[in-house]
């Protein structure tokens, strides 16, 4: 198309702004992204006008932004016009029993120690009446509802609690925050919404019992967690089971809003398909996660175990606005084969006596590249801010890389900031010590790596931690020799 034609088309499509001609009955949008596509998505989801406007604003910002290139990752240029941005959730044909499920998948479940019932849920096997997961979930939903806790899909929240969504959406991650967040804001498909009312302590790990719901991610997922004054919630997202997806680009947004004295613990395990030996076909995971400790004495804690994806770009952050508020970031990032991860956190100290703690454990194997990128910022009025950062890298073999990029930015002289970093290799003598006791080499490495990551794994809810340990071993399988 010549330049003139382009201008002409832009002009004409503008003129037909509201007369777009996408088939509303279609199950999926045509390829590419335009204002019309954004309208199509919003209309499909029967969203209120304000949300459409919000999406359009994000779209407009996105068109004015450039894809960031500062991360220590390399991947072929993404053609954003070659992506389908909306496709109706398909009713998949459910397998009748586990016999019909991919045996490789079942083998992995077994190695992870996932129970049979859970396996059925994860693979979507139709379950019998006794163990009907839907009814189990409903029982818990009733219990949560009694306490006034809202836990539902983002779309449901838009329909049932528009005032809450309107108040908080984009309040932590503004639409123009970054390229991928803007993209997500324009076209997000669905996600989770969680609201804990004042003074309520959520009695269960949210999403342990709803794992299958929470794992229903889609390409542009959006999560919003709001914790009112004095409330507490431990929220779990993701899944240890390997997840394959035909969508290569994933750009999720997670926002957490904590009022005074509230505490939110967010844990996630990410195990997207990392691609083959050559890195082909793996998922790009470009996520924006941020929480704000808006009220005094509030606390947000991120724990992540990152083992999947071909390329990871992810920096769960805390804005410590309230006085005496606290932010924590515990991370294990494992890369193997051709995987690339650039991950870390930002701790922005605004309030007085704010505290943050960063513990990052990177494990690189194969030909992978693993970078920690973290920022600690202490603003002018943040008297007595404290930060402790520890970034450890563990290397396996000679072909991988570990990198650390700490940024420290202090505007208040009363701040105390500590940064510790170590790089080590799994020693031959450590492995020999294990094998001499009868432990085979693979198990020895799993043992050593789990020991190295212990401080982070300890932060995970119990049953998740057990699976995560096994997951680390699985991810590193075959990385020695």
């Amino acid at each position, binding site marked *: 198309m010549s330049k003139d034609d382009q201008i002409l088309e832009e002009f004409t499509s503008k003129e037909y702004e509201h007369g777009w001609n996408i088939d509303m009955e279609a199950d999926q949008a045509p390829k590419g992204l335009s204002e019309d596509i954004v309208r199509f998505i919003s209309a499909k989801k029967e969203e209120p006008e304000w949300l459409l406007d919000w999406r359009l604003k994000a779209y407009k910002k996105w068109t004015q932004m450039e894809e960031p290139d500062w991360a220590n990752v390399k991947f072929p240029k993404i053609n954003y016009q070659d992506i389908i941005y909306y496709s109706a959730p398909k009713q998949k044909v459910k397998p009748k029993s586990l016999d019909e499920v991919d045996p490789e998948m079942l083998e992995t479940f077994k190695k992870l120690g996932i129970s049979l019932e859970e396996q059925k849920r994860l693979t979507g096997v139709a379950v019998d009446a006794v163990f009907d997961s839907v009814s189990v979930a409903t029982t818990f939903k009733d219990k949560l509802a009694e306490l006034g806790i809202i836990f539902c899909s983002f779309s449901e929240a838009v329909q049932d609690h528009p005032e809450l969504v309107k108040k908080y959406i984009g309040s932590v991650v503004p639409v123009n925050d970054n390229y991928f967040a803007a993209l997500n804001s324009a076209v997000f498909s669905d996600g989770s919404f969680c609201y804990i009312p004042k003074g309520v302590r959520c009695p269960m790990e949210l999403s342990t019992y709803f794992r299958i719901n929470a794992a229903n991610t889609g390409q542009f997922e959006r999560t919003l967690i709001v914790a009112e004054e004095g409330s507490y919630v431990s929220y779990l997202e993701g899944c240890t089971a390997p997840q394959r997806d035909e969508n290569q680009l994933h750009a999720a947004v997670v926002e957490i809003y904590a009022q005074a004295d509230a505490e939110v613990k967010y844990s996630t395990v990410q195990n997207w398909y990392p691609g083959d030996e050559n890195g082909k076909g793996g998922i790009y995971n470009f996520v924006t996660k941020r929480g704000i400790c808006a009220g005094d004495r509030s606390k947000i804690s991120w724990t992540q175990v990152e083992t999947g994806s071909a390329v990871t770009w992810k920096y769960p952050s805390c804005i410590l606005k309230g006085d005496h508020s606290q932010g924590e970031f515990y991370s294990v990032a494992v890369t193997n084969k051709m995987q690339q991860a650039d991950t870390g956190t930002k701790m922005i100290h605004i309030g007085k006596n704010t505290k943050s703690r960063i513990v990052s454990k990177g494990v690189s194997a194969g030909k992978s590249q693993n970078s920690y990128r973290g920022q600690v910022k202490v603003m002018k009025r943040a008297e007595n801010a404290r930060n402790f950062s520890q970034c450890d890298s563990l290397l396996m073999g000679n072909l991988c890389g570990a990198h650390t990029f700490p940024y420290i930015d202090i505007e208040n002289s009363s701040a105390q900031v500590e940064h510790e970093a170590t790089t080590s290799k799994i020693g031959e003598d450590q492995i020999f010590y294990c*094998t001499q006791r009868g432990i085979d080499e693979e198990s020895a490495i799993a043992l050593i790596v789990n*020991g190295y990551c212990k401080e982070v794994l300890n932060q995970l809810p119990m049953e998740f931690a057990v699976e995560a340990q096994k997951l680390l071993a699985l991810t590193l399988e075959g990385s020695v020799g």
Partner: protein
Amino acid sequence: MLKIEDLHASIEDKEILKGINLEVKPGEVHAIMGPNGSGKSTLASVLAGREDYEVTKGKVTYKEQDLLDLAPEERAREGIFLAFQYPVEIPGVSTTNFLKTAINQIREHRGLEPFDAVSFLKEMKEKMKLVDIDQSLLSRALNEGFSGGEKKRNEVFQMAMLEPTLSILDETDSGLDIDALRIVADGVNKLKTKDNATIVVTHYQRLLEYIVPDYVHVLYNGRIVKSGTKELALELEEKGYDWIKEKTIA
């Protein structure tokens, strides 16, 4: 139980062992003594299967098997235990967790069911008493921040738990004060049966006052140059290693 015939081994093309011959029978305690650099630790490492060493010649038969054919973990599962001269630190892994992994892999190899938590703890408690080791040490990360004595005591505790057929103690006495030495030796003695054997590698005669050997071998320049009974150790202590050196040259 163990038969070493004309064993030669090198590291980075430097020959360290130059033809070792040794036979160990069940119930025996053999001491291998020698000056620094004579190849004592190399012999211990080669028997345990450390990959840094290349066996260039010779044969080692253990329980009617070619030992050199087995991977280190297979040797361990067949009952060979090496008490390390320098026990290795493994951060974040407790001795308990480490031993549980090891024991269950050994049990699997022997066709036994893995230990459940209760029987494992019971086993631990018994063995803790035997070598006089404190529970708190076992829940700490393996060897991390342990004193020299704690490390060696931990090695003997592991030995007690794994119940080896052939134990090789590599300079277990180094870095120990007399009290620690006594406790460690005491543990080793208690573990002795008529069916298992021990090879004690040491520089000094001191340890042999507590672990009394049936045979003493003097290793010098990669060969066993003299063998005898426990009296040989005393003679060595008295005359020093120069005596052996002079004798071999002459």
